[in-house]
C-alpha cells in the first residue's frame, strides 16, 4: 500500500496577534508547527500501514524551511518525505497549490492520500478535495473513523453537523481527517534518530511536468485585494452591585427587550 500524507508547515496561529495601532500582525518569535490536523493525518497513515503493510511518504510544498516539518513527520514514524520547493510555486492559491501537489502525487504514486481537514492559517479546507479532482480520484472529507481498510477499498465515517455518514470507497482515494480520528503518537527516540539522518527528496517545477502557466501566482484564479483588522462592537453595559442585583438588572433588561 502506498500511503502519502500531505502536510503544511504553519505559524502557530494561536499566538499570532494583531497590533491595533499599526494594523499589522505581530509574529516575532511565532514558532512554526505541522498544521495540527495534519498530525492526525500522519497518525492515520501510520495506522493504515500497520494494518495493510506498505510505506508512508510525507509530502509538503513550501519554502526550504518546510524541511523541518518533514523531519518531524519522519520522527513520528513515516518512511520518507518529499519537499516541493521552487520559486515558480510562489503566490499559489488553493487551486495552484492543489494542482502542484497533484502533479507531484502522480509522480510519487499513491493508493491512499491523507490530508488534515484544513490548515489553521488559511482555514480553507479546499486543497484536499481539489487534489482529488485533479487526480480524478474520489475523496471523502472529515473522516472521524476508519472502519475498515484493505488494498482495494475502505469504509469510513464522515463527521457531519447532525451525526455521521458511513461511506465506502474504492482505492485510490483521498481522505481529509478531523481530530476525533485518533490520538497522534509522540516521536520515538528511534524516530528522532531516523529524522536526523533522513535524506529529504526535493522536487521542483521541472521535476513534476507542470505547466508553468498553472503554477504559483500565474496559475491562481484568486488574489488577495487587501487585508484589514476585524471590527469589534462597543456599546456594552457592565452591571453593578451584588450578584443578586446584577441578575435582577439583567433579567429586567431582557424582559424589557421582550427577549424572555
Amino acid at each position, binding site marked *: 500500500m502506498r500511503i502519502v500524507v500531505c502536510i503544511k508547515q504553519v505559524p502557530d*496561529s*494561536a499566538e*499570532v*496577534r494583531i497590533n491595533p495601532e499599526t494594523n*499589522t*500582525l505581530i509574529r516575532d518569535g511565532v514558532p512554526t508547527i505541522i498544521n495540527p490536523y495534519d498530525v492526525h493525518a500522519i497518525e492515520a497513515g501510520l495506522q493504515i500501514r500497520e494494518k495493510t503493510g506498505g510505506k508512508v511518504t510525507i509530502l509538503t510544498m513550501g*519554502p526550504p524551511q518546510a524541511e523541518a516539518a518533514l523531519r518531524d513527520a519522519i520522527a513520528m514514524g513515516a518512511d520518507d518525505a518529499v519537499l516541493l520547493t521552487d520559486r515558480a510555486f*510562489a*503566490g499559489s*492559491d*488553493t*487551486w495552484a497549490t492543489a494542482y502542484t501537489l497533484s502533479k507531484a502525487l502522480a509522480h510519487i504514486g499513491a493508493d491512499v492520500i491523507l490530508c488534515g481537514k484544513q490548515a*489553521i*492559517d*488559511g*482555514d*480553507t*479546507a*479546499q486543497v*484536499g*478535495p481539489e487534489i482529488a*479532482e*485533479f487526480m480524478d480520484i*474520489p475523496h471523502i*472529507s*472529515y473522516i472521524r473513523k476508519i472502519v475498515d481498510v484493505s488494498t482495494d477499498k475502505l469504509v469510513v465515517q464522515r463527521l457531519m*453537523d447532525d*451525526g455521521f*455518514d*458511513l*461511506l*465506502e*470507497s*474504492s482505492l485510490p*482515494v483521498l481522505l481529509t481527517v478531523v481530530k476525533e480520528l485518533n490520538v497522534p503518537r509522540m516521536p520515538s527516540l528511534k524516530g528522532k534518530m531516523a529524522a536526523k539522518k533522513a535524506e529529504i527528496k526535493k522536487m521542483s517545477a521541472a521535476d513534476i511536468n507542470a505547466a508553468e502557466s498553472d503554477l*504559483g*501566482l*500565474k496559475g*491562481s*484564479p*484568486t*488574489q*488577495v*485585494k*487587501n*487585508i*484589514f*483588522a*476585524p471590527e469589534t462592537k*462597543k456599546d*456594552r*453595559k*457592565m452591571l453593578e452591585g451584588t*450578584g*443578586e442585583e*446584577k441578575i435582577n438588572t*439583567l*433579567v429586567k433588561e*431582557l424582559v424589557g427587550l421582550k427577549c*424572555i
Partner: protein
Amino acid sequence: MYIKVNKNLCSGCEACLQSCPYDAIVMKDGKAEITELCQLCRACLSVCPEGAISEVKEASDARETAQGKGVWVFAEQRDGKIAGVSLELLGAGKGLAEKLGTELVAVLFGGTAGDAQELIRWGAERVFHCDDPLLSAFNDEPYAALLSKLIVEQKPEIVLTGATPIGRSFFPRVAAKLRAGLTADCTSLEIDAETGNLLQIRPAFGGNIMATIFCPHARPQMATVRPRVMKRGEYDPARKGEIVTVSAKGISSRTKVVETVKEVAETAINLQDANIIVAGGRGMGGEKGFQLLNELAAALGASVAASRAAVDEGWIPYRHQVGQTGKTVGPKIYIACGISGAVQHLVGMQSSDIIIAINKNPDAPIFSVATYGIVGDVHEIVPMLTKKIRDVKG
C-alpha cells in the same frame, strides 16, 4: 502581476517588513526584497515612505474574462430539509444580482418539486432541480460532476453555497475542474463598483485579520459563505418562477453512502438555528459546571455551546464548539459563561444580537464584545440566573 522593490529608492527603513502579514519581505544588503511568500495583498505599497514598492503588471493579467451571466445559489438539503444558509444566500444573492442587473438562480439536488417551489418563494427566479436518487444523500463526486456540467452549460457569473460540511467538501472539486477561483468561508460579499468583480471577504489567520479576495479573470467566481452572517430575503408565497428539471444521466460515483446516522440528542437542537445559546468555557471547571449550564438552558429553552478550551478538556462534544474551528452562530441572545474570549471564539459568535458575558476576570476580552457584562463567579451567578428566569417565567 507581482510586487517589486525599486532598490534605488529603498532607504532600508524596514517599515514594509512589519506591514507584511505573510512575512514575505526580507532585508538583503540593506534593501527590502519580496520573497516567494508574497500573496499580492499590497499592504506594503502604502507604508513605504519612499514609494519604492510598486505592482508590476504582466501580459498574463490581461487574460480574457469569460462571459457569464447570473448569480447562482447551490441550495443544500439534508433529509429533504433545505439548509438555513441556502435561504440566507438567496437573500444576499438577490442583492448581488440586482447590482449586476442579472438573474438569481437556485440549484437543488435531491428534495422535491415542492422544495424547488419554496426556493422561488425565497427569491430565486429560476431553479435547476435534479431529483435523481443518486443525489438524494450528499456524495461529493456526483454532486461535483453534475454542478460542473450545469455551470459549463449555463455559464453563471457567480456561484455561491453555504460554508457547511457539504459545501466546503464538494465546491473545491467543482472549482478545480472548472479552473475557477473559490474563496472559503466568506463573511461578506460585495460587488466592486468599478470592475463588477465579486469582492469576497473572509477571516484569515484564525480570525486575527480579514482579507478581501477577488478573481480578476477566472469565471465563475465561487464562494462558500458562513451560515448566519447574511440575512434571509423576503418570503413571498405568491412569487412565480421557472423550475428546470435536470437529469443525472451519465453521472456516476466511486464512493457510496451506506448509511446516514443522526447522533444529536433531540434536546440539543442545531446551534445555528437556536434563538438563545448558553455557552461555557474553561471557567466552568468541568462537566459539573456544564450541568449548571444545562439547567440554565432548560429554563430559557436554549441550546448549549462551548469554547474550544472546554471541548479540548472533553467536558462536551465537538459539535457544540463555537468559534473559528467550530460553528458560527448568531442567536438573539448568547450567554458566555467562563469564556475568556479568544479571538478564535469571538469570530464564531460576535454577530449575536445580545451578548451576555459572565466572567470573574474583569479584563477578559469577552467583555469587549458584550452587550451586558457581569463580573463574578459563574458557579454562583449561573444558578442565581437560572432561578430568576424560572421565577419570571412562572
